[in-house]
């Protein structure tokens, strides 16, 4: 991949040089890795567990499947997939950030999730796997942090087996204006303060709120998936569109 030295991309509301974004995002996640699970529960009032359950239910995973949990962070999806695919299946927990991967690996080992899980530090834009490897790829709350989302979608498409599916769980655009206003107030006023108190890092949670607003809305992401080659693409809004689950197949 070649990067134009003068090209810029968003990092929250700021415009930064494209080659710098990876480092800046890495900094955010190195900083929040240890408190990631606690903050997720606090920020979403525990609802993120239901969003992840919905993703598992929609994945159609079954024993023997090979699953890639991309930007898998602390391994919530991996833990569940590991049980579903069983001893004959395999789950790869991949994350670009070594701190998140370490926290995820320690957590899953403590939970006794071993045997069919591999850990890979990988960039979603250049996945280090052979073509047609996985039955299912999931990326939960990770795509918005990727510098070149189109390239990441193409890379995911490449590693999926024909018949395989991608599930993107990501913050999106609330369906109703009133909810949007409440959500904005919560995101920009309360969330960074919570981050400051619990994770001692208000800036990272301000980035989180900004990056959510800069992420493509439901229809735009659907179109991006179609451009990358996915078919039968669809999305399902959760909690009034605060989060959306996009799904697409490779045939």
């Amino acid at each position, binding site marked *: 991949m070649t990067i134009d030295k003068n090209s810029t991309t968003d990092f929250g509301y700021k415009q930064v040089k494209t080659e710098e974004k990876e480092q800046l995002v890495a900094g955010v996640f190195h900083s929040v890795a240890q408190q990631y699970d606690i903050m997720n529960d606090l920020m979403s009032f525990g609802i993120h567990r239901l969003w992840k359950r919905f993703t598992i*239910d929609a994945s159609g995973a079954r024993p023997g499947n090979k699953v890639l949990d991309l930007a898998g962070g602390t391994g919530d999806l991996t833990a569940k997939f590991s049980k579903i695919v069983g001893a004959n299946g395999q789950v790869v927990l991949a994350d670009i950030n070594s701190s998140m991967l370490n926290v995820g690996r320690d957590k899953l080992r403590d939970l006794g999730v071993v045997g069919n899980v591999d850990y890979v530090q990988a960039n979603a834009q250049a996945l280090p796997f052979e073509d047609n490897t996985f039955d299912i790829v999931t990326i939960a709350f990770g795509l918005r942090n990727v510098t070149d989302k189109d390239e990441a979608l193409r890379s995911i498409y490449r590693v999926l087996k024909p018949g395989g599916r991608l599930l993107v769980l990501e913050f999106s655009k609330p369906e109703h204006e009133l909810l949007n206003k409440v959500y904005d107030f919560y995101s920009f006023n309360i969330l960074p303060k919570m981050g400051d108190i619990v994770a001692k890092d208000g800036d990272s949670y301000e980035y989180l709120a900004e990056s959510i607003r800069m992420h493509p809305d439901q229809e735009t992401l659907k179109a991006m998936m179609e451009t990358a080659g996915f078919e039968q693409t669809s999305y399902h809004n959760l909690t009034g569109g605060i989060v959306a689950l996009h799904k697409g197949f490779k045939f």
Partner: protein
Amino acid sequence: MPQLLCGALEKVINSTLSLDPKQATALQQMDQQALTLQLQELPFAMAFMVSQGQVLVMATRIEHSCYLATDISTLPKLTKPELLPELIKVGAIEIEGDIQQAQRFAQLGQSLDIDWQQQLAQHLGDVPTHYLTKIMQKVRQKARFAKRQVEQDASEYLLYEQPVLVNQAVTDDFNRQVSTLAADTDKLEQRLNQLKQSLIAKE
């Protein structure tokens, strides 16, 4: 949200199963077996899958698993294999796949044998649990006695104080009188018939 129900159900099932150590072997034998249950009362299917000694509950239908469509009231009958043909015949259940798989899931719950005293002792300690159990036994005995007493008092009240009901002897006597009356009526009918015949003969 179906996921909330499934999550809660999963928690309850696994917490309950973990209280009976004997279930570990049964769960091991059922590893990777799945059952999809479509209850008429719910708008979504629920899949139960055994994995690594736990039961996963998902709001989806698992392909190639045993599929069972029924209602909540019929569920307990699944543990009795002799009832299945009749239930299928009357349309109370619809099954696709291996029915024994569904029965194994049903038997998981039926074979539960939890030592509640031991479970309680882990939280309260042995001595308080012993006293608490004795108190519970006494309360249970008293409740049983009170129930019997209330039933007895109620029947006596209805029989003698407010004669709404009648006892067995009165009922038997009434039945005897009805039988005697029926026999007398039959005799009278026969006598009338005889008189009628003799009148016809004289004419």
